Structure formats: structure tokens, C-alpha cells
């Protein structure tokens, strides 16, 4: 519900005339919910800024949070949620920071008195509610991007390619291989072959709990791609159950060399490359 021009200007005046009192009471309420995890001074600064932004939006002719005049205010709110999200505050704690403004406004309206108190209060709070919901939305967006970033970092962490010997690199695969991870492993392994000019790669699957058709396909594709580039892959660490699954699924490993352990694979590669 949009504010009327009258309401907006009364709201702006109220913010202007009672700025210090409003910020102080707002800050007290928020500080109570955050229990000291942000300093009083820091909150006071943030609320002072928000109060100014709100005043600027309303006195500039903004009637709704989505209005053009409120752009600056929206930027402040997303800034607030983004910093709260990164500092580990919950969504509620972030939204409450904005909601608390309502109580602070009510305190002042109550003291000032007047005929239109209730009407004004309802109008103001609907504007503040929009602001709080907006904060909530931006909070969720920031958290989602944080999670995506972390997932990517995890992917990087979990797929090391190590140089084992001159001309031999190895990828010890640990954990469940999904399609995305398998693709990262594949690309990283092939790139390492080029970078280290290693004609041999050992893919060790000792740490892989289960192999399904999809995972096996990814491994096979990696081996074929490596071959196209002129490198040989050896698969090591196939546990008995996995060997059984591979056969039961009817997956053809063809002429790909397989060895029981990483050590066997390395010995095999060295004997092959010494024969050169």
C-alpha cells in the first residue's frame, strides 16, 4: 500500500524532528535482540544512516519502497543484509533490525499524540514491513551466493592432482563422485598431464565408496580423453565389492590397465617407462 503524499511528508518530518531519540530507541531494541554481537556504536551508526536514507526517500517524494526515489534506501538495506549475512547473523536477526523501527516510531507517535496516530502508524508500518521483507530477500540471496561459493571451494579442495614421479601424476579420489565433481577431476587431471608433460596418470579410487554406471562412465571418458592426448591412465584401488558392481553393471573397462593398489600401479608404470 503506497503512502499518501501527506503521510509521507508527516513520516519524513517525524524522522527529521526526532532523529536522535528515534535512533537511540531503535538501537536499544536491536541491540537487545543481537545480544552484544554488534557494538552499540556500530548499530547506532547504521541506524543513523538508515534513518537518513529513509528520510531522503520520503522527502524526495518516494511513496513505496520500489519507487525510484527509494533506490538509495534499497541499496542501504541490501548493504545491511549482505554484511549481516556474511557476519553469520540469522535471517530473523537481520529482519528484526528493520522491524524494530516500528516500535521506535510507535513510541514517538504515542508521546507526540494527535488525531491521526493510528492511521499514520498503520501507513508507516506497511512501508517498514516492505523494507524488512526486502532485507529478508537480499539476505537470502547473499546466503545463496555464499553457499554456491563454498560448494565451489569444496570442489577445488576435494580433487587434488599430485605429481608422483617424473612423468607420473595421480588423482586420489575420495568420497562420492557426482557428475559435476567428475567433470572437474577430469579437466584438472588432463590439464596437469599437459602442464607436467606426464605420459602416465594413475586414478586411485580406494576412497570411492561406490561406483555406479555414471561414475564409471566419467572415469572411462577421462581415460579415453587422456589417450587421445597421448597419455595412459591406470586405475588403482578397486575394492572387491566395486569390482563386483562393475561386472554386474556390465561396464566394460576394456583394455584399461587396473591395479590393486596405488603402489602396484606406480611399480607398473615405472617398469613400463623404464623399458623405453
Amino acid at each position, binding site marked *: 500500500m503506497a503512502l499518501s503524499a501527506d503521510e509521507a511528508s508527516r513520516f519524513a518530518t517525524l524522522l527529521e524532528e526526532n532523529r536522535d531519540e528515534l535512533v537511540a530507541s531503535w538501537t536499544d531494541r536491536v541491540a537487545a535482540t543481537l545480544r552484544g554481537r554488534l557494538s552499540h556504536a556500530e548499530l547506532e551508526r547504521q541506524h543513523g544512516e538508515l534513518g537518513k536514507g529513509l528520510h531522503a526517500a520520503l522527502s524526495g517524494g518516494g511513496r513505496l519502497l520500489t519507487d525510484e526515489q527509494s533506490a538509495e534506501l534499497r541499496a542501504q538495506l541490501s548493504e545491511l543484509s549482505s554484511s549481516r549475512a556474511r557476519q553469520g547473523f540469522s535471517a530473523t536477526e537481520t529482519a528484526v533490525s528493520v522491524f524494530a523501527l516500528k516500535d521506535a516510531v510507535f513510541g514517538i507517535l504515542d508521546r507526540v499524540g494527535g488525531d491521526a496516530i493510528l492511521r499514520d502508524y498503520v501507513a508507516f508500518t506497511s512501508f517498514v514491513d516492505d523494507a524488512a521483507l526486502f532485507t529478508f530477500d537480499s539476505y537470502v540471496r547473499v546466503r545463496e551466493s555464499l553457499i554456491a561459493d563454498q560448494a565451489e571451494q569444496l570442489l577445488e579442495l576435494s580433487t587434488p592432482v599430485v605429481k608422483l614421479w617424473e612423468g607420473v601424476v595421480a588423482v586420489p579420489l575420495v568420497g562420492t563422485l557426482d557428475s559435476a565433481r567428475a567433470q572437474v577431476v577430469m*579437466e584438472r587431471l*588432463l590439464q596437469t598431464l*599437459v602442464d607436467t608433460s606426464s*605420459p602416465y596418470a594413475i586414478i586411485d579410487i580406494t576412497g570411492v565408496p561406490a561406483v555406479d554406471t555414471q561414475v564409471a562412465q566419467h572415469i572411462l571418458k577421462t581415460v*579415453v*580423453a*587422456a589417450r*587421445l592426448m*597421448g597419455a595412459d591412465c591406470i586405475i588403482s584401488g578397486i575394492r572387491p565389492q566395486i569390482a563386483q558392481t562393475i561386472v554386474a553393471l556390465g561396464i566394460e573397462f576394456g583394455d584399461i590397465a587396473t591395479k590393486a593398489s596405488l603402489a602396484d600401479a606406480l611399480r607398473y608404470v615405472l617398469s613400463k617407462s623404464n623399458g*623405453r
Partner: protein
Amino acid sequence: MDRVPILKIGEILLVSIQIDMEDQVALQLQEDLADRIVATGTHGVVIDISALDIVDSFVGRTLATIASISRVLDAETVVVGMRPAVAITLVELGLQLPGIRTALNVELGIELLDREHLGEPDQEDVVIEP
């Protein structure tokens, strides 16, 4: 039309493909290379494709044909320097490049030729195909 240069280095011919080839250029290379193999009497050809950002089925087929023609002319072909992204794409495309030997780079390619063909002339060649 551009032409891919063929260099003779020691006992081998080195072809380094540096341009995005039109199909005609690839076919021209196939002809030029056959001529040079006969003219130089080489037993080894190294084709460096490290500058190619894609290999489609046409280029793949041309490489396979070059390898077959070379073999008939008693020369072994090694394709070197295929980029990882290209290799992954070829696997997905379903292109196998049978009969093509590959190595990671020019140096390893030359090593492979030395080991397999140039070093010990003629003994390995006594294979009677059915």
C-alpha cells in the same frame, strides 16, 4: 588460400597447425604432406595441434587419413599437443581417431618416433597383414 607449412627437422617432418583451417586447407595439407614424405623419404611425421582450439569430425578424419596415407608410405604419424578441452569434446562427439598415435607435446612425440621406428629400421615392419 592459406597453406600449412611442413618443416623437415632432422629425420622427421614437423607440421604445426597454427590457423583455424578451412576444410580445403586441411585437404591441401593431406596432399602436400604425402608429397613431402615421398620427397624426403622420412619415416616419421609429427603434427602439432596445440594451437587448435577445436577439432571437429572433419579435421579428425583428415588426421586419420593422413596417418593412413603416411603408413602406406612407410612413415609413422604422431599427433601431439591436443588440448584437454578438445580431447573431452572429441570423446563426447564419439570420435575415436583409431590408428592415430598421440603424444602430449612435440618432444614426447619425437621420442616416441625414435623409440618405435627410426631407431631400429625395418625389423618391426615385417608384419603380414591378413
